Structure formats: C-alpha cells, structure tokens
C-alpha cells in the first residue's frame, strides 16, 4: 500500500544495488551481531531516523552465548506473518534450529531497515512488500552469520572450514568436534567479514517452500502470553483516553474537568492538540472520567456533510467530465460513438473502517537521562521517531521506538502524522513527563477516529462492435485522494493519485480503446490505505462490470476473459488454475451458482471462484477456490492462511460493512452496527499456489480484492440482480 510513496516523502534515495546489502558484524555482549557495516544515511526529510551509533538496536541477527538466535525484523507484524517469513529466510541460510529462534521488531536505522521496495529511504511495512524487501537481505544476513560461525569453529578446532557442517543449530566436523552456536558466538564476532557469501540454490532449500513449517509464534498467541501494546506495563504508568471532536476538523473551544477529576482514579485532565485527555490509574477510571468531562467544540472548520450528500455529489460528478486521465489508449470517445452497442453502469462504494481487533494505542516514557521510549504498532517507525522527538523536544536519536506486533492493522497504523503515537507523547508531555503514559482508544474512538477507506463512485461505458467484440472501455472514478494533503502528496502525478486508480488503470484486458479517468473530491473526512487500498473498489467495479458486458455478449465469463488475457500469460495461468480446481467447466451442484474474478495487486495475481446459493434474495457463499501467483512461495502455509483470511476479510466488507455519517458525525461506534464477517458466514476456502521461480511478491493484501466481484458475478449467474451499490446487505432479501 505504501508502494512508491516513500520516495515521495524523501526524494533522496539511498543506493539499493547489491552494495546496499553489504553486511557487517560486531561483538555485542559476548555474542555475534550481523548487520550493516556502513554508516546510516542522513535522516529523512520528515521524521528523521536516528543515527546508528545512538541506537543500540542495530543489526539483523543476534546470536547470544546462551545459544538463542534473535532476528531483528525490519518488517512490522500485524498478523500477516512477516516475522515468521524473515525467520524462515535466516534459518534456511544460518542452519539454525527453530527452537533457538525469536524475532523482535527493529527500528532506528534506515540504512539497515529501509524498505528496499520503496528505494530504501524509510523503514516501513506496507504494500505487501515484506517478503520482497527481505528475501535477499535476510538470506544474506543468515549466510554471513553462518560463515562467521564456521570460521570460528575452524580456528578453534584447527580444521579447514570445508570440513565443518552447520545444521540444526549445531556445528560439527569430520573428526568428531561439535559445538553450539552459543559456544562459538563470541569468537565468531571477531572473525573477518565474509566478502561474498554464497546463498543456497533453490534445490537445497529445506525451509523455504516447506509447507509443513509451523509459525514460531502460534503457541504464544494461543495461551495469552503474546504481548501487544495494550499489554505494556511500566512502573508508575498511567492510562489515558482522549476526547476527540465528534466532527472531523473541529477543535477544542473550552472544557470543564471539574467532574472528571472527581472520578476515583483520575489523576489529570489535559488538553493536547487533538483533543482533551483524561489520565488516570487504569482504563475504567479514565473511561468514567471522560464521560464526566465537559468539552465545547469549535466546529467552524468542521465537515458537516453526511455520507448520503457526499455520495449524491459523487454520482452527479461521475457523469461530468473527468478531472484527470490515468490511462488512455486509442480513441475511446470515438469508439463508443461508433459502437454497435454501448453498455453503461455506475458502482458505489461506501467508507470502510479498518476496525482491527486491538483498538489503537501507544505508550510513551521519558527517562531521567532525557531519552524517550515509545511503544506501539509502529508501521513507519522512522517517521514516528521524528514526530515523537519533535513533540517531546528531544533529538530523534534520543528516541527509541519499540515496535510491537499488533492486533490487526490493515493499514490503520501507517499514518503520516503519527496519530495515536503523537497522542501518547503529547499526553506524557502535558503531564510534564511525570509518568509513562499509555493512550488507549476505545472501540468507539477507533471507529469514529477517521482514516477510512474512501467512498468512491465508478461510472463505466463499454462499447461492443457488431461482432460483439469489446472495443471500448471508459471508467471514471470519483472520490477522495488518500495522499493529498499529506507528506506523501508527491505521489500524485498529473492530477492522478495512483492509490485511487490502481487496479482500474492497469487492467490487463486486450481492449483497443481504453480510458480511465479520475475526479478527486475535497471532503474533510480523513481517509487512509485500507488492506488492498485502491483494489478494494477497482477490482469489484472492473470485474463486475466486465461480467455485465460478457453477459450482454452471451459468452462464458471464463472463456471470454481468457481470450482478452492472451497477452497476459501470468493472469491467464492463475485464472486457469482456479477454473480447473473449481471445476468451472463442469456444472455446479444443484442449486449452486458460480462467479469468478481475477485481479492483480501488489505484484501478485489472484483469481477467486465463488460458489453460492440464493435464498430469499440473499446469497450464501459455500465454497471459494483461490489461485495465486506470488512468486516463490517462501511459506506456503502462511500464503494459504493469508488468502483464506483475505478472502474472509474481503467477503465481509462487500456483504455488510459500511461507515456512514450524518451531519458530519459517524453513525457507527462498535461491532453491533459496523459488522465484519463472523464464523457463520465464512465459506470453505481452497487455496492453490502457482509454482514460480520469480522473486516473492505480496500476499497480505492480494487475497482481498477479487472475492467481492466473484460473489457478485455468482449472484448474477443465479439470476439475481447486478449489485452495484455496496455493501450487498443494502439490497439483500428484496
């Protein structure tokens, strides 16, 4: 999701050639730390990164004398499994045993952890890039550590390195010598750096591509011991909730804390830039304190429109000329004018909330030596480090970012202004840093805190010639820009925010005349990337409308797409695999109907085939067949899990998720009115992976986009209506 945006944030890209991965090593507390040798690049323009010398947490792999191996992950894990993925790469090359392995979030050194897929300029997780940015970097780190351990053993035992084998966390040689990694860790740290480490060939892999590997973190996530930000406990820590304005763009005019301060356990009530914070000994005290707080808001600059007015405006504008053109080939206007038949449709998409299970939170503590520590789900830690430093009035290198794994993210924790991280530091500062502070949002704070998947309208015109050939395709998208007005604004090129049109502007179909246009609206409802970003609406719109066109022609949806995909073998292969596995060319069981869709997002291609039944105008999705091409499958079972979960996440969103506003205020507050998928609506999902020797591409997001249109197309196949207004719950049962 953050693809391409970071260069916009910091145009000064670092070197990303193979040189960029040159490893260094150092002795750390008697162990071996493998990391980067060269000095870090200078700080990014907004949100400076700390220099390497000031931050102790450098490197990729720490092998301790107690034989533990800690992998320092540049990638933040919100559930998609990059910790497990990076560990797999290291274990493969290092020859470690999984029982030795732990993974921790790292931060504070852009040179080490900058996302290579973003030019290396900023550390961050997004755009389903974790495996792509890590595939070489962490394999090389593992291989370098392996060579240094072997060199240490060779010197200790007086044998040639070639006689030493490293496997299962043990070093052995042909004459019976044996040592653990821990035994050799201190000596290995003094060995010369291997200059040109050789990585294993694919046919030597035992970890990469091994479907039987289990995630190292599952047990802790099953017995309550895995710690999240909400679980951070520090001596003397206070908890805070923040009263935010009910309308976006409003500000605090005045407040009266008298009653709030009478609540047992409330210690402070302070104003911060984003609202009024109630601080106290525990969550219940501050919840009650906030209920007793009186705040008057200045709403002069606030958004006061409701979502119904916003959508009405979008629909009207979808029929007007587009502001900007994202793609044009041929002469679409002329082709439409000359077409034997023109098909038109308009699709509507609501605002969506991320609604991750762990409501937003962060913890800030200023230490006696002037340093600041900030715990949180830091999706872009360098940026948050800079923001935290600025608020606290310290230097970025005095700030340590503790990157916690988080209870779901879906894009919500990558916010240019720091959001809840800024709040935690602001509250701590407002109470003069007298205690560490955890700012914890409630579910309602999270639901009403903005940063939604923007609402969009798509209008379409398709032209068929007299032979029913699709000769013209016009798609006009209307909605807010995610990056406008943020430091990522540089992503907008020629009036087009690529996150608004991705998945629509790059349709793979062979059509002579294509025009994809964009009109960007000005609405004060804060918006953000939401798992799969532009593809959350473009896939549904494009694949549903194409199905309408195919129905008009009277062709088979699979065969017709395959014909249009002649020049895109990767898409065609994915679609074919899904069709073969789903038995597309055999009749569906009695009372069942199938629909399909194929979509590229985050450099991966996914096809969904949904099998449904209809009762009283309402679909039940029974079975979903998924095919994916994501390059080399590093962790096949994690990929399957992501496609299963992504399918459920996407299905829930199109069935019944919608965030609405009335007079500028969000109507939904909790899961009773904003309704993600529950277990009773989860279909059986069978995932099939296309074998590949290409570098790994994304899997965290690509499972989401194409389930929606597959279901919509199955409903149409069942004789139901074309559902052009989401969520489907609006038109079900009628």
């Amino acid at each position, binding site marked *: 999701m953050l693809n391409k945006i970071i260069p916009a944030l910091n145009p000064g890209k670092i070197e990303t050639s193979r040189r960029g991965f040159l490893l260094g090593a150092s002795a750390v507390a008697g162990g071996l730390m493998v990391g980067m040798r060269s000095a870090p690049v200078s700080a990014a323009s907004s949100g400076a990164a700390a220099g390497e010398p000031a931050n102790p947490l450098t490197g990729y792999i720490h092998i301790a004398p107690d034989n533990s191996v800690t992998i320092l992950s540049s990638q933040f894990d*919100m*559930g*998609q*499994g990059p910790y497990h993925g990076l560990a797999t790469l290291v274990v493969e090359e290092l020859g470690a045993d999984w029982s030795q392995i732990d993974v921790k979030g790292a931060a504070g050194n852009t040179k080490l952890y900058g996302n290579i897929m973003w030019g290396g300029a900023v550390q961050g997780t997004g755009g389903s890039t974790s495996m792509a940015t890590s595939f070489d970097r962490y394999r090389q780190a593992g291989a370098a550590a392996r060579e240094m351990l072997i060199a240490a053993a060779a010197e200790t035992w007086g044998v040639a390195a070639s006689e030493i084998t490293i496997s299962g966390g043990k070093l052995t040689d042909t004459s019976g010598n044996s040592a653990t990694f821990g035994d050799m860790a201190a000596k290995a740290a003094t060995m010369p750096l291997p200059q040109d480490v050789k990585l294993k060939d694919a046919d030597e892999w035992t970890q990469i591509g091994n479907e039987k590997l*289990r*995630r190292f*973190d*599952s*047990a*802790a*996530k*099953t*017995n*309550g*011991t*895995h*710690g*999240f930000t*909400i*679980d951070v406990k520090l001596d003397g820590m206070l*908890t805070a909730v923040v009263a935010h304005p009910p309308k976006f763009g409003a500000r605090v005019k005045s407040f009266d804390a008298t009653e709030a301060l009478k609540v*047992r356990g409330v210690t402070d009530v302070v104003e911060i830039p984003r609202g009024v914070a109630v601080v106290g000994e*525990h*969550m*219940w005290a501050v*919840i*009650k304190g906030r209920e007793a707080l009186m705040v008057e808001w200045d709403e002069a600059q606030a958004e006061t429109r409701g979502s119904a007015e916003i959508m009405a405006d979008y629909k009207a504008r979808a029929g007007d000329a587009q502001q900007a053109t994202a793609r044009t080939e041929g002469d679409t206007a002329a082709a439409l004018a000359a077409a034997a038949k023109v098909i038109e449709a308009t699709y509507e998409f609501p605002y969506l909330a991320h*609604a*991750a*299970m*762990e*409501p937003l939170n962060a913890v800030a503590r200023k230490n006696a030596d002037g340093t600041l520590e900030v715990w949180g789900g830091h999706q872009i830690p360098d940026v948050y480090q800079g923001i935290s430093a600025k608020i606290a009035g310290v230097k970025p290198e005095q700030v340590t970012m503790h990157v916690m*794994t*988080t*209870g*779901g*993210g879906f894009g919500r924790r990558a916010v240019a202004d720091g959001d809840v991280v800024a709040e935690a530091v602001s509250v701590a500062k407002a109470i003069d840093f007298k205690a560490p502070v955890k700012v914890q949002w*409630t*579910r309602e704070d999270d639901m009403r805190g903005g940063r939604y998947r923007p609402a969009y309208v798509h209008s379409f015109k398709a032209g068929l010639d007299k032979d029913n050939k699709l000769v013209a395709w016009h798609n006009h998208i209307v909605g807010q820009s995610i990056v406008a007005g943020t430091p990522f604004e540089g992503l907008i090129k020629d009036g087009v925010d690529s996150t608004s049109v991705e998945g629509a502007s790059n349709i793979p179909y062979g059509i002579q005349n294509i025009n994809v246009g964009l009109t960007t609206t000005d609405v004060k409802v804060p918006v953000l990337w939401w798992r799969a970003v532009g593809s959350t609406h473009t896939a549904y719109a494009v694949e549903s409308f194409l199905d309408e066109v195919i129905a008009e022609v009277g062709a088979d949806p699979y065969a017709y797409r395959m014909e249009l995909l002649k020049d895109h073998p990767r898409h065609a292969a994915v679609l074919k695999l899904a069709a073969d596995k789903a038995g597309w060319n055999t009749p569906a069981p009695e009372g069942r109907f199938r629909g399909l869709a194929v979509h590229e997002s985050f450099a991966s291609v996914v096809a969904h085939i949904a099998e449904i039944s209809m009762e009283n105008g309402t679909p039940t999705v029974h079975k979903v067949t998924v095919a994916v091409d994501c390059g080399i499958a590093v962790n096949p*079972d*994690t990929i399957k*899990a*992501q496609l*299963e*979960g*992504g*399918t*459920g996440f996407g*299905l*829930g969103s199109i069935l019944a998720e919608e965030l609405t506003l009335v007079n500028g205020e969000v109507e939904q507050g*909790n*899961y*009773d009115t904003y309704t*993600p*998928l*529950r*277990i*009773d609506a*989860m279909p059986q*999902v069978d995932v099939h992976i296309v074998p590949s020797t290409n570098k790994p591409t994304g899997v965290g997001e690509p499972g989401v986009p194409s389930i929606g249109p597959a279901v919509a197309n199955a409903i149409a196949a069942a004789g139901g209506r074309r559902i052009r207004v989401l969520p489907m719950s609006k038109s079900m049962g009628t």
Partner: protein
Amino acid sequence: MAYNLNINGEQKSFDVDEDMPLLWVIRDVAGLTGTKFGCGLAQCGACTVHVDGVPTRSCQLQVSDAVGSTITTIEGVTGKVAETVQKVWADLDVPQCGYCQSGQVMAAVALLNETPKPTDEDINDALSGNLCRCATYQRIRAGIHEAAKRLEA
C-alpha cells in the same frame, strides 16, 4: 469497596468501584493481560473468560456480580480439553495477529466441554460471538473438529 474474587484458583481482594467490569479488574488490577479488550460491548468476544465454566464476556460483568463465582482466564485454563485445543491451534497455525485468540480458545474449550462432537452448526452457534478480523475462521472450525477427534481417541 473491596471485592473478593476467585481468579484461576486464587482468592484475592480487589478494592475497586462496584461497577468496574471484570475485564478491567483482570487486566489492569490483577495484571492478567491474556484476556483482551476489543469492544467493551459484548460484541467481539476477545474478553471471553469462564465464569463457573460458562463462557462469559468479562467486559459486561461488573465486579460486584462476579463475587462468589469461579473465574478462569486464558492464563488459568487447564485440563485435557484446553491443552488439546491449544496444541491443535499451534499445529494448524490458527492465529494470525492473535489478538482474538484467547477468546476463541476459551469459547472453543467451553463448547467442547459441553458438546464433545460439535457440528458446524454447533460451532457457528457457540463462536459467532467471537470476531476475528483476520478471518481465521476456517482454521478455527477445523481446529475444533480436530480437537474433538483427538479427544475422542
């Protein structure tokens, strides 16, 4: 006022307001953080604990009403069913982010205690109150069936 609670077999006194939800007593006062806050409205199940063996949303039970009951959290759940469910969860790699899984495990254990061979329908009835935003539902369902199978053997 002080309330005497039995949590995971330990009897302890908590000096808190009577309307404090059991969830916040468990998390913020007793310091047992395996039980999660997700909604505060009994809509997500992340705070599920057993109260006298019955799966209960601890965010909706006030401390004064929990006196005299036996409270079990994810940290204290034991026995063959619990151990089997937790083992199966790891064997099948059910969790993704993991945040809801304490609640899912507590709900699954309660279901299997009550219904050793649950059908898909039984699972839907027992667990539809437990949200998983990562949508790990397919593996949760498979995990409950697998645990039932192992427990029968």
